[in-house]
Every structure is written in C-alpha cells, then in structure tokens.
C-alpha cells in the first residue's frame, strides 16, 4: 500500500482546518472591532 496518499491527505486536513480556524477568528475579530469603532465615532 502506497503510504503517501495517506500522509498527504492527513497534512491537507490539518492545514485546511487550522487555516480555516485562523481566517474565521481573524475575520470575526476585524468585523466586531470595526463595528465597535463605527459606533464609537457615531
């Protein structure tokens, strides 16, 4: 059994889920902080 498809798919899953978590956390933080700043200016 060729092990590389298993190794590559495991890394792919780990990288995609970690990147997804970080992007989601970053976007939600920027959106919330922008809304707070907008309201403060108003």
């Amino acid at each position: 059994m060729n092990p590389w498809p298993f190794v590559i798919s495991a890394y792919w899953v780990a990288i995609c889920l970690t990147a997804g978590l970080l992007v989601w956390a970053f976007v939600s933080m920027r959106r919330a902080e922008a809304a707070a700043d907008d309201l403060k200016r108003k």
Partner: protein
Amino acid sequence: MHALANPARFLRFAKPATTWLLLVGFMLAVGGVAAGLTLTPPDYLQGETVRILYIHVPSAWLGMAGWGGIAAASVSQLVWRHPLAAVGGRAVAPAGATFAAICLITGSIWGRPTWGTWWEWDGRLTSMLVLFFLYLGYIALASAERERGGEGRITAIYGLVGAINLPIIHYSVLWWRTLHQGESIGLTGSTIDNSILWPLPLTMIGFTCLFGAATVMRMRAELAEAKVEARMRRMGRE
C-alpha cells in the same frame, strides 16, 4: 492573571500578542511540517506514515489542553468571578474542537495503512471522540446561555464536569490495552529515535502559538461585540 482582569488592560496586551503568536506560530509550524515531510527518515516499522505524527501529536495535545483551559476558566469564573473567564472559555472552545477534530481525522488516516482499519472503538479513540462532542455541547450551551443574557454559570459547571474526560483520555492506553499504542513520549523521555523526533517540538510549539492566536482573536471579537451591545442598550435608553 488578575492584572489582565481589566478588559482595557487585556486589549493592550492582546493586540501585539496576536501578531507575535501568528508570526512565531506560522514560522515554527511551517518549518516543523516541512522538516517532518522531507528531512526525517521513514520508521523501520511504520514506514512513511510515521510523518503523520508531526501533526497528530500536537493536535491531540491541543485538543486536551483546550479543555484544560476551559476548566481553568470555569474555576476562575465560579470561584473568583474573573470578568474575562467566561469570554476566555468561549474563545478556547472553537480552537479546541478544531484540534480535537484534526486529531481524530489524522489518527483515522494513519490507522488505515498501519492498523488496517479507519476506526476502532478503542479506549483512546472513543474518549477523544467524546471530547470532540463535549466541545460541540459546550459551544452550543455557551451560545444559548449568552443569547438569554445569562452569566455563563451553567456553561462553567459543564466545563468543569467535562474535565473528568481528560484523565480518562490520558490513562486510556494503560487501562484498556486494545489497539492504540502506549505512551511514546513522557516527562522522563521518549521511545522514539531522535532522528525522527526532532521536528516534533517545532510543530508542537508552532501549533500551540496558532491555537493561542485563534483564542486571543476570539476574545477580542467577543469583547468588541459586548462593547457594541452595551452601547446599543445605552442608546436605546436615551
């Protein structure tokens, strides 16, 4: 910790910390992953599949450490009424759930060529799956309690009760000797050869920094949302 109890003081620390955690985490994780994929030799028994270790072990550690963080936040909230404890617990949960899921998926992918099966109802695998479901329950409960305007005390109690699963996961390989191998890395040393082991600290520290960055960013988002809600309520009264 008490020095950071004030949200304004916490934000002064959190803003530079986010950048540093992302930078250091990204460099170490990429370096460790690249080294694990290209610079280490294959294992004499597992062959190339041993490379999955460099992502599976950090995700297992972070899945468990995340719930340790939730338990610590729960104690801080229930005993000392730390103002950021509930925010911290809610911020850790998505990162912990993500790494618990990575641990389960990468373990399953490793199991197919090594054990000949994707899944087995073994003590370690089952208790890790329970941890993942505990995270989902925590996220749902915290969100429901927040929507109702609660202080998060029920969520904190759930976080403490769920911590019972942590020693079960840790000792599962000793209590039920089924498919998952015993402990390979302990406080006193490791049974893995150094030629294979050396990239592991890089991915462990790198992914831990990225976990920290995700948690701090979620805390900042929660604090900003709370600020907006408070201001809207004040404007509604005026």
